[in-house]
């Protein structure tokens, strides 16, 4: 790991968070690539790939639910942990700190909306 690197290094293939676990932090990718997958009815589906600057695990910060997905290092990756308690505390003092998170979460909802619309269209075509 670079001497000036912040965060923690994960070897390719290492599970960083596991679906169903309770969480007290979110993560920000500093270097490398990680993959988020979700397991449902015994089947694993890829949710997406994340790279430097992307964050994951934020749902645990804002809702009291177990981790919704498993995230693995796809390449050797460096990831920074952001503590839930410290982040929420700072957001109460400075609500604008949440703007970037809200923007990224909003962009994800927008992407999901597009995917739902596309899948809906596909189903209609099959009918």
């Amino acid at each position, binding site marked *: *790991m*670079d*001497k*000036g*690197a*912040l*965060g*923690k290094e994960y070897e390719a293939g290492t599970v960083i968070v596991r679906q169903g676990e309770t969480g007290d*932090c979110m993560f*920000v990718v*500093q270097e490398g690539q990680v993959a988020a997958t979700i397991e449902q009815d015994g089947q694993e589906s890829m949710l997406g790939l994340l790279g*430097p*600057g992307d*964050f994951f695990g934020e749902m645990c910060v804002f809702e009291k639910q177990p981790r919704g997905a498993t995230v693995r290092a796809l390449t050797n990756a460096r990831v*920074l*942990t*952001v*503590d839930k308690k*410290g*982040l929420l505390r*700072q957001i109460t*003092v*400075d609500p*604008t*700190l949440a*703007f*970037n*998170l809200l923007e*990224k979460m909003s962009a994800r909802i927008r992407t999901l909306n597009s995917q739902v619309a596309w899948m809906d269209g596909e189903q209609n075509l099959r009918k």
Partner: protein
Amino acid sequence: MAKPGDLKLQDGSRIAVIGGGPAGSFFAYFTLMLADRVGLDLEVDIYEPRDFSLVGPPGCNMCAGIVSESLVQNMAAEGINFPPSVVQRGIDSYVLYMDVGAVRIDSSRREARIGATFRGSGPRDVKDVKWDSLDGYLMNLARDKGAKHIRARVNKVEWDADPATIPLAERRLTLKTQDGKSQTYDFVAVTTGVNTALLKVFQELNIGYDMPRTTKAHIREYYLGDQAIEKYIGASFHAFLPTLPNIEFAAIVPKGEYVTLALLGEDIDNATVDAFMADPAVKQCMPPGFEFDKIACWCGPRINLAGSAQPYGDRIVFVGDSGVTRLYKDGIGAAYRAAKAASTNVVFHGIAREDLAKHYGAFCRAMESDNNLGKFMFAVVRQIQRFRFSRRAILRMAMEEQKRPPTAHGGMSMVLWDMFTGSAPYGDVFKRTLHPVFWSNLAWNMAVCLVGRQDVSRPTQSALESGNQ
């Protein structure tokens, strides 16, 4: 007189930021970011004569350059991740040295979340610059948001019309620079720090500003080389609680091939520095036979002991050290929080003195209250240092905790971590000390150390490196 909320920034409003250190760049960045979000078109000029790409004093803003754990996390949440070229060392632990022993304390996440940085491009003897300046990096972020960097030194600030006859809404502040040029602005953010004569100009402006109370710190850089850094210093922040009367705290921090020595306290002179260097704990930390007079670079910057009572006025705000900052610790993190409080104020609430007093003023008062609690806590630490058994008890308690998994209340390890790394407000540290488990453990360790006469064993270097005492 303008009523609260009357005087606001509008499309085309011009803002001057005097000083391009972290406070100035943060203020420019977040003001432009917030303005963009609400569709407000602002023009922001940053006045900074220094070139941060230069080594030694011409490119340096004289500071130990520690980016705290909380700031690293907040910045990541903001979408700003410090690259390894800017952070010369990721810090994952600290070693506390006292005359009765030493203890290594790992971060609760076992993760490098503190950044050791050079404010400029490194000490004056650097031949081959391998890194980027923190101040230069932050300035570039502000420039990418649309701020303009004016490489000039401001030497005069005055109203463009007579305040006695012209209402506030119709007058602006004019900045004059050493090269004889002048420009008029709707709002001015002063982010110069306290190591400048310019602050006296603002007292003459009759806006109610009084300068912060300061004292002199001492910072040195030493060249150790990669191998010695890895062997003796590692990725740890080495903290000292010497029994010298005017040193509150000292630290040796690795940065690339160098270490930074920072001595904080009141009016630290050369005799105090020499006495500190002669301390066996300091010699234990550094390589054997290290020559302490081979200094790569040094400075004696002024640091705040108490903030300005009124760091704002009509159309003007003082952010960072020139206003209010944290006592001894986390100056860069304090600059970030103050800059955000000021940016939010000017974009959403207004730029008259009353608006700033209500919002930014409340932030500054809260930070000053926390600093007062910090002063009390440092006074308690001084009392603890008076007795050998209490010094041993603190180290023993922290050592025992490090052998077990972290607990929810954190214990002595977290109290020391937050107190010496600046990762949490002094109020939070104080609250940790009120936990009944903390008191019962402290009382037990005090009793053990009062009865037993042996010092806490001095850990070997390899034990300090591995964190296993």
